[in-house]
């Protein structure tokens, strides 16, 4: 099962809303300038952190399932992690949990 198929089973809140606010901010300049491990790119269970062909880290919040992993995976201070706003934020609603 691919990660895309897996994430297809997840119910997200406020998906497709243009003004939805991000609950996680990543300073990828830190990832790309001084992080020795780029751990989030292979530890995030929702593949929100990816590495491109040039080896640069990118982050997208849309697939985030609010697990918290990146808050601990990053020890460089690049990740600012908050809970999503119920009305305007993204994030999950588990059907089973």
């Amino acid at each position, binding site marked *: *099962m691919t*990660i895309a198929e*897996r*994430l297809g*089973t*997840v119910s997200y*809140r406020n998906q497709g809303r243009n003004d939805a606010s991000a609950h996680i901010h990543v300073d990828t300049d830190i990832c790309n300038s001084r992080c020795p*491990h780029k*751990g989030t790119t*292979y*530890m995030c*269970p*929702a*593949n929100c952190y990816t590495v491109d062909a040039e080896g640069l880290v990118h982050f997208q919040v849309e697939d985030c*399932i*609010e*697990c*918290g*992993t990146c*808050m*601990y*995976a990053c*020890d460089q*201070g690049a990740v600012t*992690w*908050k*809970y*999503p*706003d*119920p*009305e305007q934020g993204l*994030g*999950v*609603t*588990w*059907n*089973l*949990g």
Partner: protein
Amino acid sequence: MEDKFDCIIVGGGIAGLSAAMVCAQNNLRFLLVERGEFCGAKNVSGGVLWGTELARLVPDYWKAPDAGFERFIRHRRLTFMDEQSAFSLDFKSDHFDQPPYAGITVLRAKFDNWLASKVEAAIEASAFADESFLVPDVLVEELLLESGAVVGIRAGEETFYADCVILAEGVNNLLTRQIGLQPEYVPADYVAVGVKEVIRFDQKVLEDRFQLQDRSGLSNEFVGFASQGVEGGGFLYTNLDTVSVGLVLGMKDLREKGGPKPYDLLDTFKRHPAVADMLRGGESLEYAAHVVSTGDIRALPKEVYADGVLVTGEAAGLLLNSGKAIQGMDYAMHSGILAAEAVAAAKQDEDFSAASLKRYRDALDASYLMQDMRGFQDAVHLLHSPAMFQAVPNLFCDFGRQFFTIDNAPTRKASAMLKDSIRKHSSFLEMMKLGFKARKL
């Protein structure tokens, strides 16, 4: 109606709902806020709720056909794996199959929502039926402090005040950090990440495959190939017509290994012959993941109470994997109950200072929970040692393969086989050291 609650509870998981139940039973005027659409909407666990305490909150819960649990644990299995083999300790007993059942499988979106309905009923029956509330879709952004004491919460533009606040916000305890009970940055050393899938079967197929009678169920934990060298292990639990299958992986080790990704590890685990045989024909309904604390006592908040505030459940780092079971939800329930009892006693005294709320810490220390967490720290460290998820399972499987192989050659003594397996995967010295440590289990 006064403008101040006796108590505000942050989080509608098991800790928060258990606290709310006890608040209602003690006729406290309280507000429980949950950031999800409903209680359970944001919650993930393996998961087995161990112990019998649910029966204390919801007497005879098993008699109701719509009770929120999945199955009773009647059959337990601990499996050691290498790439091809599975060697299990297997225990099944009718002793487990009678009330009050001491282990139930749950799916949190369903279970927590059901428990919330029981809290609503308790509020109805309390002295403050119209003045206590469970409110979903409210995110607490900050705790309000006056002269160093917690006096309320802020959610968006709105503020709510109370004599005290019970934090039941889960492992990602941002509010506990806000008031300095936990450092702002918690290192990867003290957390793990769980990934799981819930896989559906025809209920009859599931019951036949796992030999389940009525509402009996199986809990199966895995060490070894399950996590492919990464610190951690696997689990498989039977629900009503689904199976929860997943891995718990040590965050620091995962980072140091540099991959593979958690969901790729999960795929490989699911493809192991022993697991694949159990999952064949199932349909994956939902993938989920969540951080989980490791039960290392060094990671606990520096205190679980302060002026006007109490910290419960995983927000307080209360979880233990002693090798016998992963206990998180029963710890959440117990700590939630104790916190609410402390609030009820503080209300009697009209004193919500730290000195008064210390009674929660005292009750926690006296309970099975802190006794076990303190008593089994060696077990926690042993289970996190590489030998336990690499050499030991490989050695067991190697021995098993020799022992259970019957071919047309002279049969060797089991002791000779064991020696071979130890030499191949470890050493006698290592095993003696491990055996010495294992006395603590």
